[in-house]
């Protein structure tokens, strides 16, 4: 127990606990909102359609991911290609597209 706790006679009010929880939650949800632009699901669907013209892939074998840090955004596309003989995914192709911001 710290000296500060020792002198604090009252517990924090329930309203201040609520406020703190909300501030953390809202900050988290806002950061998620930014990394998932609304075009992403559509982009994924269209990419899947294009790729399916050439290779038979499962929707689960494709991942589209957008990452953001301070100076750049990275759009990462990863597709597990099926093995032609065994029909089992093992090859991996990971093109990335970078945009400086």
């Amino acid at each position, binding site marked *: 127990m710290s000296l500060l706790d020792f002198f604090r006679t009252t517990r924090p009010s329930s309203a201040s606990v609520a406020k703190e929880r909300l501030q953390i939650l*809202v900050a988290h949800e806002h950061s998620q909102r930014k990394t998932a632009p609304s075009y992403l699901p559509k982009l994924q669907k269209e990419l899947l359609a294009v790729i399916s013209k050439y290779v038979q892939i499962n929707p689960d074998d494709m991942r589209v991911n957008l990452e953001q840090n301070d100076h750049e955004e990275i759009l990462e596309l990863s597709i597990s290609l099926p093995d032609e003989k065994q029909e089992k995914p093992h090859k991996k192709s990971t093109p990335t597209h970078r945009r400086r911001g």
Partner: protein
Amino acid sequence: MTRTIVITSGKGGVGKTTTSASFSMGLAKSGHKTAVIDFDVGLRNLDLILGCERRVVYDFVNVINEEANLNQALIRDKRCDNLFILPASQTRDKDALSIEGVGKVIDELKQDFDYIVCDSPAGIEKGAMLAMYYADDAIIVTNPEVSSVRDSDRMLGILSSKSRRSEQNEEPISEYLLLTRYDPSRVKKGDMLSVEDVQEILSMDLLGVIPESQDILNASNAGEPVILQGKTNAAQAYQDVVDRYLGEDVPQRFINQKGFLGRLFGG
């Protein structure tokens, strides 16, 4: 220019319909021709709160489906000539409202009305999305309570990304915070989030605070929007909200607990 205003929240039971009734009555009483639309398809309630439930013949979905024209469906309020109600349909068909259908009705209302108030259903499903889609302004009804504040924040995200204004890269919807069911005595005790807390979390402009009030239940029992019960705190709080929305500089009331003398002599 007509303004379209959505009364929304995400969470249910926070006071959207109560607010829609009093806000639209207030605008109408101030001399503006106002239409209020109930978007809660399947669970219509606004007609009850406004006391015109026995005069409903046609509804919003009938107009969209061209089974009735707008003039047949709009109900003129008996207390105020400037107020018209477009009731919700009782259908269970979730797809009864469409973006084109709603747009057509709103465009037609714009020819005739100064304000169009859209009473949103709870949630973030189709009805709520359509209620906010065409809005110019949004009143976010929030209770000082964790789940309501969180849902309001989510609704703000939706307003800024899924509305017509956002899709067409127009100036964004103007958002106003309306804190309802506020109890200053509980705030003082530390049991309830304060106005400042909620404003800080949502970073929004405050349109007003409606106190927790028994008069709201009495008003809905009687089918009269509470704003017409002029002596009550709730009526005055809603009147302030309307005046502020219309650009008057009205100081905030009902935020602080009345002192002993205030309680002794005040209502």
